[in-house]
């Protein structure tokens, strides 16, 4: 599936100050029966978001209309557990383009990058200040410069991303295109091992 080109984002954000949010919370297993990538956004955080009868839980942040934006800000060690890419599809499907945390699980980081969702790693302090700021606070995420700014207090941090992935996101390329383009190199590797 083609991914959108990533441009600089300036947006309010949805705070989720919980640590160790695992992919079973992001998208519970019972929603994994689909054979397409569509429709997962509605079930993002399903067990925290809905009551048993399907009605929204009023106190969960996604159900509070005052919290919105293209950025999700979550507690440390986000995305641990299962390798299900459905978690990234759910986050993208809901409309998030960036997830900010002080620590991400490895597989989730790969999966979200492969779907054009940028994981931004910030310091614990920067994260806490985002949590403590008011509802209408905004962040600016500049991928070219690799910076994130808390517009409320003006503080900035730079974040890391390897230049290959950065280019992919900025240009909307994906890894499969890359690999298909080096077919000959793969074939000669196979020969060398045979």
């Amino acid at each position, binding site marked *: 599936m083609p991914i959108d080109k990533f441009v600089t984002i300036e947006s309010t954000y949805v705070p989720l100050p919980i640590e*160790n949010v695992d992919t079973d919370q992001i998208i519970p297993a019972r929603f994994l029966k*689909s054979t397409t990538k569509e429709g997962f956004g509605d079930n993002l955080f399903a067990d925290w978001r809905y009551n048993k009868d399907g009605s929204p839980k009023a106190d969960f942040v996604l159900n509070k209309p005052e919290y919105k934006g293209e950025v999700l800000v979550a507690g440390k*060690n986000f995305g641990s*557990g299962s*390798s299900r890419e459905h978690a990234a599809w759910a986050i993208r499907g809901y409309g998030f383009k960036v997830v900010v945390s002080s620590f991400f699980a490895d597989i989730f980081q790969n999966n979200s990058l492969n779907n054009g969702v940028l994981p931004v790693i910030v310091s614990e302090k920067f994260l806490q200040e985002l949590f403590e700021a008011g509802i209408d606070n905004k962040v600016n995420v500049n991928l070219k410069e690799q910076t994130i700014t808390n517009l409320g207090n003006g503080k900035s941090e730079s974040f890391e991303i*390897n230049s290959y992935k950065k280019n992919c996101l900025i240009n909307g390329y994906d890894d*499969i295109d890359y690999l*298909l383009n*080096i077919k000959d190199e793969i074939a000669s590797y*196979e020969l060398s091992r045979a």
Partner: protein
Amino acid sequence: MASKTLFDKIWDMHEVKTIKDGPSVLYIDRHLVHEVTSPQAFGGLKERGIKVLRPEKTFATPDHNIPTINQHLPIADKISRFQVDTLTKNCEEHNIQLFGLLHPKNGIVHVVGPENGITQPGMTIVCGDSHTSTHGAFGSIAFGIGTSEVEMVLATQCILQPRPKTMKINVEGKLAKGVTAKDLVLYVIAKLTASGGTGYFVEFAGSAFRNLSMEGRMTVCNMSIEMGARGGLIAPDEKTFAYVKGREYAPKGADWDAAVEKWKALVSDADAVFDKVYNYDAADIEPMITYGTNPGMGVGITQNIPTLESIDESSRKTYLKSLEYMGYEPGEELLGKKVDWIFVGSCTNGRIEDLRVFAEAVKGKKKAEGLTAWIVPGSQQVEKQAVAEGIKDILEEAGFELRQPGCSACLAMNDDKVPAGKYAVATSNRNFEGRQGPGARTLLASPLTAAACAISGVITDPRTL
């Protein structure tokens, strides 16, 4: 030549190229496929109009989304049936070996691979499932991938992967009676926390791991992902070779001898440098159980749940949320707490050795009143062997029932869900909120501990059974 870790040796052998300031292009020897994380990848191939590059290196089995009773009947849940049928159709279209439902080789993907000699030392192995790390028990680089990556491997037999750092976890000494491979790995995860291994690939070294059976080593490597590690591996030895020998997809005759010669070089050089090293003493480990909602929240079974004061201040909120979900208080004793459910199975502890241990412990006793137990073999072969060895009879006499193979309540995608609020002692690998069903409360433990709890109906130290 510079000295290398085992991980580096295997990785370097499989590197097609490295992208400057980017990931490596890694060649994949074995790709395991199941019904849940593959349909969108096959769909992607279709959109691009391409075929699977190396179908002979690809093996498929439905396991996550299948019932564990009445497998001879069509799957009742229509959407599940469609997902399983989609796998069959995709395998037919791309010429991939499929071990479908009731096939003598069907089972949980990480049980099936080793059982049939598909998993071999020195290989790179991937699957769209995080517990692919299991195969590291054979001295291979095995890790879970997402669906985009499944598509990459189907299309090119390669994957783009940043090179992880290396970690050595060294445990020396003998495990005490009643302490098993599961306890060993839960202990390590409790020490490192659920994120302590993130960014690393782990080598488990030392006599405690070396003394484990292949099944035990699989249990350990299986759970390396639960400390956040990309995967874990153990250097292959005579035990490994003996396990692989004669299995269907293992090399035969002269090829076998040549393979073993090569495999013998798969060790970390004596002076190889790891980015991180941890050392533990096997004698410090007792039977373990988890009390919270991630696998790092485990303690020795005779210990109390940590007090609030012992938790980092910034993590207390998450800690309390977790205990609230479990219905526990900080500082409480775990022994004697009620158990409603037992789940023995999964790619962590659903192999024949696990069923043997469980059966041995419940033999001649009776399942506790009111307790529900699901004993789910990891594969058709495990099921068959359990019947042949009389394990099934022992279980039935004690009031337990042996189900049909599958992932079952490990992730509760099928009907095997633990009801909300109930306490389940499970031999699987994750105790996340809702993992075994919405509201279900999971306590991870070994098959031996599960047996002790199944007989008494409360959390019980297996050493007192």
